[in-house]
């Protein structure tokens, strides 16, 4: 079932990606789109038959280039396939061949032609009237407005582009903010897809782009413009260490026997219960690992205002004790309330992401472990 053109498949094979790998990848895409796996061959054919490459402008603003770096870690398709066979990435400061005026010209030409996707990485820098970031003599904020006006859709990759990320953490020295709130403030309304975490997971970037190429529209989004399929559940919901949580088996010191046994990191400050991403499912870097598998508690980089809301990272969720019989659904809601207060301040708007509606969902009232340890004054 290679398409009539078969170009993509031939190119992939030339690069060592077998037809089987490609169909398997299309299966992943199907799953991400919430389609049946049997849709994989159709997806493969649609991709293979695509004649023109979709133009992309990838802007970096108050960024560390970590989201470009992360996207370069995509495996199937790899980054070469993405930039040569699926997209025409006409402007991307970190890897484009052109420099200086020639680079800016490539961007201006793409904007003039229209029909492109805008990917935005890094915070929108509003400090000193926008002078906190100047590229080719133009303010970063003006570049955003120009590119956003002509874009079919905008993908805000990484927490910095979504809400300012760490750059907007107190005292927010350079007036950093997210793409959505900034564009709203200047009256620009474009389809926006928010992909928070620090950095962005390449699987999400690729799936959202392929989704858009196939269906010509943005995926189903939640009220914060995040794809529902990615941000619909907490890390805690899908964590492979969840069983240890249920059993009351916790790591209480790094390097301990419990750490070596892979026990739950909740007592070490894990923000999995209040962080909505599918990291435990898609994992990172060719699916080889993810934060918790490295023995580290989630620091909640996929949450909103993640630094101010989650630091100190080693503190248990807002110091709510876990030895009192309080269950995670309630914890998630309680912390969510605090998060909500922060979000209103930053203009994103918040109706507690799903978790609020689930307050009171019955769970066991108290775990056996907690009952035992609660008598001793909790887990610490």
């Amino acid at each position, binding site marked *: 079932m290679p398409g009539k053109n078969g170009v993509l498949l031939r190119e992939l094979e030339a690069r060592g990606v077998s037809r089987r790998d490609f169909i398997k990848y299309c299966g992943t895409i199907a799953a991400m789109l919430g389609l049946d796996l049997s849709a994989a061959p159709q997806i493969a054919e649609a991709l293979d038959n695509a004649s023109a490459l979709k133009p992309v402008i990838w802007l970096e603003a108050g960024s560390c280039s*970590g989201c470009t770096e992360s996207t370069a870690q995509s495996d199937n398709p790899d980054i070469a396939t993405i930039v040569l066979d699926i997209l*025409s990435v006409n402007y991307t400061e970190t890897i484009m061949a*052109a420099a*200086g005026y*020639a680079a800016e010209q490539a961007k201006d030409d793409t904007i003039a032609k229209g029909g492109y996707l805008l990917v935005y990485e890094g915070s929108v820098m509003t400090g000193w009237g926008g002078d906190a970031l*100047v590229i080719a003599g133009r303010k970063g904020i003006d570049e955003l407005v120009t590119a956003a006006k002509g874009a079919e859709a905008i993908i805000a990759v990484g927490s910095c582009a979504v809400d300012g990320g760490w750059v907007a953490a107190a005292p927010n020295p350079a007036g950093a903010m997210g793409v959505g709130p900034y564009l709203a403030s200047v009256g620009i309304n474009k389809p926006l897809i928010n992909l928070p975490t620090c950095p962005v997971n390449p699987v999400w970037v690729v799936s959202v782009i392929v989704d858009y190429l196939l269906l010509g529209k943005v995926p189903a989004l939640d009220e914060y413009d995040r794809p529902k399929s990615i941000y619909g559940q907490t890390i805690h919901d899908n964590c492979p260490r969840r069983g240890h949580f249920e059993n009351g088996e916790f790591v209480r010191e790094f*390097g301990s026997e419990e750490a070596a046994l892979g026990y739950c990191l909740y007592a070490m400050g894990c923000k999995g219960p209040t962080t909505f991403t599918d990291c435990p499912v898609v994992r990172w870097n060719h699916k080889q*690992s993810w934060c918790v598998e490295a023995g*580290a508690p989630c620091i909640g980089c996929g949450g909103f205002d993640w630094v101010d809301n989650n630091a*100190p990272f080693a503190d248990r969720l807002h110091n709510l004790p876990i030895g009192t019989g309080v269950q995670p659904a309630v914890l998630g809601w309680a912390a969510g309330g605090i998060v909500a207060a922060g979000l209103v301040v930053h203009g994103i708007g918040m109706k507690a992401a799903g978790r609020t509606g689930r307050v009171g969902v019955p769970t066991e009232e108290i775990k056996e472990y907690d009952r035992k340890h609660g008598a001793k004054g909790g887990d610490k």
Partner: protein
Amino acid sequence: MVRTVIDPVTRIEGHLRVELEVENNLVTDAWVSGTLFRGMELVMKDRAPADAFFVTQRICGVCPVSHGHTSSMATEAAFNVTIPNNARIIRNLVEGAQFLHSHILWFYNLAALDWVDVSQALKADIAQTYALAEQVGTSTADFKAVQDQLKKLVAGGQLSIFTNAWFGNTAYSAKMPPEFALIATAHYLEALRYQSEASTVCAIIGGKMPHIMSSIPGGTTFVPTDDNLSRILFRLKAIRDWVAATMIPDVIALAPFYPEATTYGQGVGKFMAYGVFDRESMKPIDRYLPMGIITSGLNVADVDETKILEYVDRSFYEPYPEGADKGINPTQGITQPMAPKYDTTTPGGRYTWSKAPRYDSQPIEVGGLARVLVAYLRGVPEIKTLVDSTLAKLGVAGKPEVLISTLGRTAARPLEALYVGNLMIDQVNELIASLKGGDSKFFQPYDDAQGAGVGMWEAPRGALLHATNVSGHKIQNYQCIVPSTWNVSPRDADGKVHGPMEQALIGNPCTDLKQPLEALRTIHSFDPCIACAVHVMDAKDGTENTIWTGPAMGVL
């Protein structure tokens, strides 16, 4: 006398602008500007000491591991913590994997496009390409498929990341056959794969990459298993073998096409490395790549960190209370940003967000070349062998000073990549031996109430320093001097002494004002961590006569 500007400088991390003054086809002066301010140091104030490990990694998505390690070292120094031996080896491994990632990505995917005109690969004869690869001893690939890929791009009229490249510029070597361009292009694509394999090693240890999770102050959260050790070891072997079979021969084959590139880009001729990859002693002087400073000729000395002072006379920061011309040691550092107004025409004007660190009042170059030179002069045997054999192959045996140039700076990092690849395989074996010996300690608890400490380490692009000052369990002051701050630092207040990259640009050929390719090579040789365009202005009457670099005329 005219000026030309590269803004944005692409294929780097971040936002960089370079302005050049050109006379008789030679660069006579240069202004290097960082054009973004975020304010990490201010964000760290009042936070928990250990959180700096997580947050300061976000300074840079290319070298987060180095920031994380330097931060943890500063925190550990503040609280007198010595990390367990296993944690030392594991940190070496994740750092080394990041070095491999960074060197591969930088050499092939960022820097090489200044040396190889990819459009020439379209003209290559496939059979001759295989013959040439064999002749120069580099690895082969499916050259036809790569050429077909390029042809398809050109036929489709959408050039993606090659849009408006400076291909066709006369500063590309006329002697380089199209077949070599095709080999290099094939390896450019392979490099995209191997940089990712190296990053995957970081992720197996650190959970994800960029921005790892494991090297927290006190040790590491990563506990090795048979499974993840084998996934690490065999990836490292594959990467090391590729570096040896592809990257090293490519560098040696490329150099003879650009003999003139050893005659420019010398810079300030002073080098410093803090050292990287700890041995059991945990002493910087003992590191596998040791600490040292070179301030005159090729003589190495010990680093005295009290001699490091930062100045802000030409940067967008408020003058220090002690006086505008006074420098401050980073342990006492102050970051007070002001509204930026770029001024490269008035004597004493401010033109960058980069501060100006100086050692004993002198600008110093840091980076791969500095590390290799210090290790060479300190007599690290593997580095001596690598450098000497490479110099011999290039017909300049016994002349390490040729490394001090744009070409030499570019070649030093691939050599270092091979050294690091071998070292990392040794480190896996050392870790396995330690675990077999029964050592199961990975973390040392500590009290974080009070203390001040400095961490000095290396990022792939050079010497990195973090300083933390804690009281009441909270950070009171946090300062970083990142490698590129040394390299892209502005000139002194009186304008007599330039920053290292500015100095390296002075004397560069500039045959095409619209596409100053030689200057771009010199800029990329430093792998600056910041991004720019080229416009020209008439310096005589100071009017800005914006002649930007024109659109590329190349085939691609």
